[in-house]
């Protein structure tokens, strides 16, 4: 489904600050997999997501989706079949537009943005129903500007919006990191529901080890541009948070991040 093949990525190439992040990095994601990716800062998690989405170009290697090489495809084109939720709740919604207008924008993804009415009135009830799944009462606030919602509400809306149209992939970039623990839990449960109900292939980067252990059916730990742990199926079921934490401490000491 998704394949990263022999990826090299350097930062500040040709300067004294040159840093090699990925050297011959490979990753294969199967259709319907829900992968949790953990790793310390600078381990390459976000760079990997950015290379998949196209905002960062690899220096060598290629990226395939459904067997098609997309390495040269422009970023916005790739989003035709990719949905993404960001760490910052304000990235996934338009603050000065109302909830209804935001839902309409997301609903029109993949269609032509022409001179038809931006909001299709016949769809309003469908939007209300979708919003009611969030259990945040947003269905009664259709004409409220998104900028006045809380971070957690916005993030739930962003999650809903990014999964409204058919997708190949859902990219979750530390999407619960900016939320309080309770709100983060709600958003995580919603994520799980959307991914499973729609049968999405999802890659979730998180700093929350508990989420990584509890959710998803594959767990990858990244360190210095390598997947140093890759657990699937039963292995993933059996692994406990303590084991992950031990491994995590090990790599942290290696890079001098221990206490």
């Amino acid at each position: 489904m998704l394949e990263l093949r022999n990826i090299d990525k350097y930062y500040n190439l040709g300067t004294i600050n040159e840093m090699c992040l990925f050297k011959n990095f490979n990753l294969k994601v199967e259709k319907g997999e829900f992968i949790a990716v953990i790793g310390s800062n600078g381990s390459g998690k976000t760079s990997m997501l950015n290379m998949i989405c196209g905002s960062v170009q690899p220096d060598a290697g290629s990226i395939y989706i459904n067997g098609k090489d997309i390495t040269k495809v422009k970023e916005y084109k790739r989003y035709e079949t990719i949905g993404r939720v960001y760490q910052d709740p304000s990235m996934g919604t338009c603050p000065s537009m109302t909830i209804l207008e935001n839902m309409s924008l997301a609903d029109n993804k993949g269609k032509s943005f022409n001179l038809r009415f931006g909001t299709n009135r016949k769809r309003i009830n469908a939007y209300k129903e979708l919003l009611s799944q969030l259990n945040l009462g947003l269905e009664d606030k259709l004409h409220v500007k998104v900028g006045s919602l809380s971070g957690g509400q916005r993030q739930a809306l962003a999650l809903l919006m990014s999964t409204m149209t058919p997708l190949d992939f859902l990219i979750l970039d530390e999407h619960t990191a900016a939320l309080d623990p309770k709100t983060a839990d709600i958003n995580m449960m919603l994520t799980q529901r959307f991914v499973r109900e729609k049968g999405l292939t999802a890659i979730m980067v998180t700093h929350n080890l508990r989420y990584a252990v509890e959710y998803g059916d594959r767990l990858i730990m990244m360190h210095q541009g390598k997947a140093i742990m890759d657990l699937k199926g039963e292995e993933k079921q059996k692994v406990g948070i303590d084991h992950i934490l031990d491994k995590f401490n090990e790599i942290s000491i290696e890079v001098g991040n221990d206490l």
Partner: protein
Amino acid sequence: MGSLITGVLEQGMIYAIMSLGVYITYRILDFPDLTVDGSFPLGAAVTAVLIMKGVNPYATLFIATLAGAISGVATGVIHVKFKVRDLLSSIIVMTALYSINLRIAGKANLPLFGEETIFKNSVMDGIFQGGIKPYKTMIIILVVALVGKLLLDAYLITRSGYLLRAVGDNETIVTSLAKDSGKVKIVGLAIANGLVALSGCVMCQQQRFFDISMGTGTMVIGLASVIIGTNIFKNVSKIKATTSVVIGAILYKGCVAAAIELGMSATDMKLITSTLFLIILIATMDRKKKVK
């Protein structure tokens, strides 16, 4: 006094058309677009030349708008395709337009004395007779401004309009919707400068001449109108932003007229324009958002 008020309303509504364009770039796109200082006289230059050549004055409204839109596209392409900073790309086009306007008009000053305009022709003279005659110009400007405003309102609730509002709000989401955010910006700049040139076209016909320096300070007038309007009606959600911009432009023109009435000389116009703008910025605290 009566003629003073009509004068303010006439000029205020002409500037309102231009301010709607500035509203698009400044408020919706968050793009500091100085192109307007060039596209305003561009609209006027195109109009003056076409009218001299005997083209129907109503046709000039569309042709001038189109010319302005092209200048907006130029700024957009320089910014988006060649990755020049937004302010710089607009300055490049503004500067180039100075010479282009001179080329179009042929000279720095082009008076339109005997020619027909959208205000002075046999049809309009026939319609406006008797008591409403003194308000002829004002009513015609009102119609043009209203049509411009309503068309913009209508556009902003289309899918394309939604995308335009989204791109200034949060560029990332436009990319996430699989749309080229650069293209959306170019469309926005085209519409904005189209409106600005339309305003220049009406201005040229109202004052019956084109002058190469008539664009100086357009940006400041537009910004002041947008800021006054949107701040006055900030807490009134019933009033559309475009309506408040139109009212803001008329109020601003009124303030400038009052300053001249109070004894300032007409040569102090630009000084008054910028001082008033500064006062408005300080009073509304709008400057904070822009200082980075």
